[in-house]
């Protein structure tokens, strides 16, 4: 088992290298002159030469790449042209907000989506199946940003029960802000006993999380259902029935355990697509996470920001996939024992 984990992590690091190389290539290929960006349009030749040395652009490409990779690991990701702060600091500020959204959405997705899928598979072609499937395929076809807007419109605009945007109401942010310990508002507000801020944050969380979960649970339902339907055609399911095992046990213990593999793998893929969805959702709800950060960066053509966030996403995705593979090995003995 340990060997498997080590091998898997090693593979991830290799892929990470590949990602970094590509990022470097993209950066160099971009029709943007970093010298001009840094020094300004009016810089003189000497100034430009200085900048070039400063930025290390006079060294051979391979060395530059080496420097780039080293910088990645030391956390030197450049500075944002907008905020003038190191990109990595900005990301440290905004990442927890994004993670809150993603983690909550993934948890809810799994909690709702998988059972729906199981019910669908077990009662295949009867009305619970049809209802679930229509719901799922409908949700998965709706653009996430549109769902967000619609929810905003109904619950905030027309009904006024939930806040329109942002993560904290202004009164709370100014009057009783959450002290930063871990950087995660949910945890920090609980630790410091700041219950009003906690409640306020949760209220602000509802709509964004609902938008993301809506789409996610559709995917989870679909893949769970399709995998389980296939699993239930297996010979050993018939065998277990022939021994007289109660149907519930046959379906949920034997059927589900064998189906969960693909569900996990696709949840990893899905969680990764969540990274994408957050960008959209955050800009709609003005949520102070990485998505908004990069959206502004894109608008301003702030390249260090764009690159930094892309790196974080890629790394995050990689981590998720590795975790999913390891989890798969835990569940499926064939994977870990070969």
């Amino acid at each position, binding site marked *: 088992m340990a060997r498997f984990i080590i091998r898997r992590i090693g593979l991830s690091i290799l892929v990470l290298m590949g990602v970094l190389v590509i990022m470097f290539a993209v950066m160099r290929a971009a029709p943007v002159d970093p010298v001009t960006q840094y020094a300004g349009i009016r810089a003189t030749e000497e100034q430009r030469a200085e900048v070039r040395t400063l930025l290390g652009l006079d060294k051979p490409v391979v060395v530059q790449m080496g420097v780039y990779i080293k910088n990645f690991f030391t956390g030197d990701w450049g500075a944002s042209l907008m905020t003038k702060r190191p990109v990595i600091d900005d990301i440290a500020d905004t990442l927890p907000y994004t993670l809150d959204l993603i983690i909550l959405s993934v948890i809810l997705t799994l909690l709702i989506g998988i059972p729906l899928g199981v019910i669908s598979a077990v009662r295949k072609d009867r009305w619970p199946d049809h209802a679930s499937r229509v719901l799922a395929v409908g949700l998965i076809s709706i653009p996430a940003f549109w769902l967000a807007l619609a929810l905003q419109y109904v619950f905030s605009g027309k009904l006024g029960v939930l806040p329109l945007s942002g993560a904290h109401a202004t009164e709370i942010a100014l009057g009783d802000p959450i002290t930063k310990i871990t950087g995660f508002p949910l945890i920090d507000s609980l630790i410091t006993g700041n219950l009003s801020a906690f409640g306020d944050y949760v209220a602000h969380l509802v709509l964004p999380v609902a938008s993301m979960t809506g789409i996610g649970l559709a995917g989870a339902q679909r893949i769970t259902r399709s995998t389980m339907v296939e699993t239930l055609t297996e010979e050993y399911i*018939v065998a277990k029935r*022939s021994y007289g095992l109660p149907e519930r046990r046959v379906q949920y213990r034997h059927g589900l355990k064998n189906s969960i593999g693909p569900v996990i793998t696709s949840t990893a893929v899905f969680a990764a697509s969540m990274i994408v969805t957050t960008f959209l959702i955050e800009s709609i709800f003005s949520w102070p996470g990485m998505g908004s950060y990069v959206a502004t960066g894109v608008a301003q053509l702030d390249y260090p920001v764009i690159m930094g966030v892309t790196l974080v996403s890629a790394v995050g995705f990689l981590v998720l996939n590795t975790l999913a593979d390891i989890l798969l090995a835990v569940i499926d003995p064939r994977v870990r024992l070969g």
Partner: protein
Amino acid sequence: MADHLRIRDLKVGFQTFDGFVEILDIGDIHIEKGEAYGLVGESGAGKTVLALAILGLLRQPPAEVKAEELSLDGEPLLEKSQKELREIRGRRISMILQDPMSALDPAFDVGYQLSEVIRLRNKMDRKEAREKALEFMRMVELPDPEMMLDKYPHQLSGGQRQRIVIALALACGSQFLIADEPTRNLDVTVQASVLKTIHRLREELGVSLLFIANNLSLVSVMCNRVGILLKGRIVETGRVRDILDDPLHPYTLDLLRAVPSKEEQLDEDEIKRDVEIADPSRSRCALYPRCKFRGPACEGDTAFELVSVSPTHSVACPYALQSLAAASGALATAGATTASDAVAAATDGGD
């Protein structure tokens, strides 16, 4: 002795894209307590379907199961609900499946799968159940069971897996076993050893056995009585002795002759007959297109019924019956002592 399993007029069919297809039309199978009945037929004859139909494991659309009688210990099975059937499955009748790789759940170790079944019938905790599982594993002659308990199906060899499958069927504690081609996917030497185990177990435990196979010689070793299944119909049935000494149906003859021997030399006519294929629509007998003995008596559009030739031996073939009748005359003259001799004598005169 009372019948353990009794089947009369069982018809099983499936609704398919091309229409309704009838798979089985079984006239009569009865198995007494402690008896071993062998069902022999080629692949695709519907043998597994029969096993599933008996256990009620066929989903009724698209399948359709009807019977005059299908009873276990006198209790009719067809009208029972799934809930009632679940009580019967395992406890009173269990199945040994064909392909051990797919019959075992790959996600659980062998010990778990055995304990699961054991605890279904007995109030035990996990430890006790695992002890009992070891017992069953020894019963099926598995070497080093303690080590094997934690293994997963894919880590075992084919023969070991099949023994586990047998152990599972036994662990249910039923008195009636259906063995669906249990050695089909195994190497020949392993086959022999697994069959010996099954045979031994039957003698020790006294369970009734419905043994499904495609090999008549296997069946003749394992069973008391035999039924020959041709495309879903039983065309001959009798004690093993009857079938081996006295095969009547042309298909039975084919099955027996399937082992090539040096003595037999086929003459040209026989070869031509063997290769010639007749139009299947002229008769409802499934063997008609390739039967060497086909004749005018075989044509028609109803299937042939099983007719008793002796208290223990029945056959569904007009040609065989005809020859037999003709032969009872020839019996005295030719001094033949068995039915098939008489048939042979009767046909020698002219084809």
